[in-house]
């Protein structure tokens, strides 16, 4: 079975610090797509960053970057210079060939002023 696992149910960090959220997945496929989504309290789920498995270069979007380790099946999200607005649930997700977007269980991130 293709799975996505987030082992950190909750994390907190001081404002302006850097935090890394972990995600691992399990698949036998070679080509797939990985995503990090953010769900702020009572607000819409939005995409943070996307990574294509066949690209070795780690994706970066402003303060957000990923560490994609294909052999280890790891896809962590690093948030630099964290801001209060980063407080949210973060979900790791993947498109596998079954065409269903598979989500991890989420990490609740709190940025402390």
């Amino acid at each position, binding site marked *: 079975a293709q799975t996505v696992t987030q082992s950190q149910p909750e994390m907190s960090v001081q404002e302006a610090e850097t935090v890394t959220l972990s995600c691992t997945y399990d698949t036998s496929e070679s080509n*797939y*797509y990985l*995503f990090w*989504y953010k*769900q702020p309290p009572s*607000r*819409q*789920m*939005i*995409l943070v960053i*996307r990574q*294509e498995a066949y690209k070795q270069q780690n994706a970066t979007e402003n303060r957000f970057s990923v560490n994609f380790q294909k052999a280890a099946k790891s896809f962590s999200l690093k948030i630099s210079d964290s801001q209060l607005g980063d407080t949210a*649930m973060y*979900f790791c997700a993947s*498109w596998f060939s079954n*065409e*269903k*977007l598979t*989500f991890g*269980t*989420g990490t*609740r991130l709190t940025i402390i002023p």
Partner: protein
Amino acid sequence: EADIYQTPRYLVIGTGKKITLECSQTMGHDKMYWYQQDPGMELHLIHYSYGVNSTEKGDLSSESTVSRIRTEHFPLTLESARPSHTSQYLCASSPSDRDTEAFFGQGTRLTVV
């Protein structure tokens, strides 16, 4: 901001009532999804569709039903609501290409009393 809309945002309804949660998107996406989000925030896929007249059950068994008569519309129906149906329901859509993320609606928070 994504053009995918869910109505109502909040619904409180009595046991035994029939309800329909609406989801519409104006992006012409072929794929649409319904997720149930439990209080712990984990997402469970309950229904998906790859196009008009295509519907499939997701990973989590649900007493709800869906239809896809038009590309832009993917309503979810509960024939007889029960307190166990109390949850947040998220609708999402995506194009056929796997390299594009899914877009989410704002969700419907359903409470059955």
